[in-house]
């Protein structure tokens, strides 16, 4: 592999551009796809690999090619630059999520408390509209404050986010669901919100709660056995 190839792959990743990286296993010849120079068959296999988000080896026109699907990192939008976010943001980044932390309260959402984390100090509804959660985005609200959490959840429910979680006790969550229902969300839509957020591992400390949240997000993302909550 050439160093310039790695640089090109890093540039695609930084720009959140989906590319497939193909290596001919006989001699190491490589393409970053899509690339018209690579031929139709290889480009078609690259498209399929990206759609399935799966890397593997394929026989194409008499040669073995390893095709690596390099989709952009899944995103995690955190609303609330609170103590738990200080554990959750770095853990999520380590797990491979591109983390954006939303909090209009600059006393909480600042570089000093969250070094290296992408911050958005807009009001949550405006931030969510701008961030436009898609099928590769998880959203977790952490503020406990309805005037911050509710607008974020309202927008999250209107999006294709694959995971929506809200921190708060069962009682807090019931009250939250009633407020969101009053905004016109159906029971089926509201059932998308996981509250209390995270797997029930008896978490107490902020890092433990962060672990339970990331574990549940990964379970949903990967279709693990703990993705479906028990009755």
């Amino acid at each position, binding site marked *: *592999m050439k160093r310039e190839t790695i640089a090109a792959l890093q540039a695609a990743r*930084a720009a959140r551009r989906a590319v497939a990286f193909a*290596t001919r296993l006989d001699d190491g010849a490589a393409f970053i796809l899509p690339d018209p120079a690579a031929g139709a068959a290889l480009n078609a296999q690259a498209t399929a690999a990206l759609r399935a988000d799966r890397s593997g080896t394929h026989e194409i026109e008499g040669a073995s090619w*390893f095709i*690596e*699907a390099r989709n952009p990192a899944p995103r995690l939008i955190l609303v609330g630059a609170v103590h738990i976010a200080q554990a959750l943001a770095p853990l999520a980044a380590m797990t491979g999520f591109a983390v954006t932390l939303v909090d209009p309260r600059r006393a909480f959402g600042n570089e000093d408390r969250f070094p290296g984390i992408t911050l958005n100090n807009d009001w949550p509804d405006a931030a969510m509209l701008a961030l436009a959660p898609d099928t590769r985005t998880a959203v977790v609200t952490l503020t406990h404050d309805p005037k911050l959490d509710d607008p974020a959840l309202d927008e999250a429910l209107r999006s294709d986010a694959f995971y929506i979680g809200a921190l708060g006790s069962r009682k807090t969550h019931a009250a939250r669901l009633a407020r969101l229902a009053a905004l016109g969300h159906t029971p089926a839509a509201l059932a998308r919100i996981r509250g209390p957020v995270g797997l029930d591992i008896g978490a107490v400390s902020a890092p433990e709660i962060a672990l339970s949240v990331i574990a549940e997000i990964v379970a949903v993302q990967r279709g693990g056995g703990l993705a479906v909550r028990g009755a």
Partner: protein
Amino acid sequence: MLMNNAEDMEDILAVAAAWAAAGEQVALATVTESWGSSPRPAGSRMAVTVSGRIAGSVSGGCIEGAVAEAALRSLATGVPERLEYGVTNEMAWEVGLACGGRVKLFVEPLI
């Protein structure tokens, strides 16, 4: 340690490029197919240097030593290689995967 996405611990290519930029001679190993209970999926990578640095993994730890050797050999010859490891009782004296999985790899120099 706080990591941002640019230092994603799965992003072994970034580590390899940084090592090469610092003057190290680097070889790469990539899992191209895995079966059974092999713990690392296709696309998993390991980077090794002539000076003895290792980042990433291509199995649960059982074949990394042999793969690193093959990767460094490809660095010396300049020729990529395809490798395959599995485990059966007959080859128990060879390096293999205790988990019973099977894995194919591609090793190549970083140039």
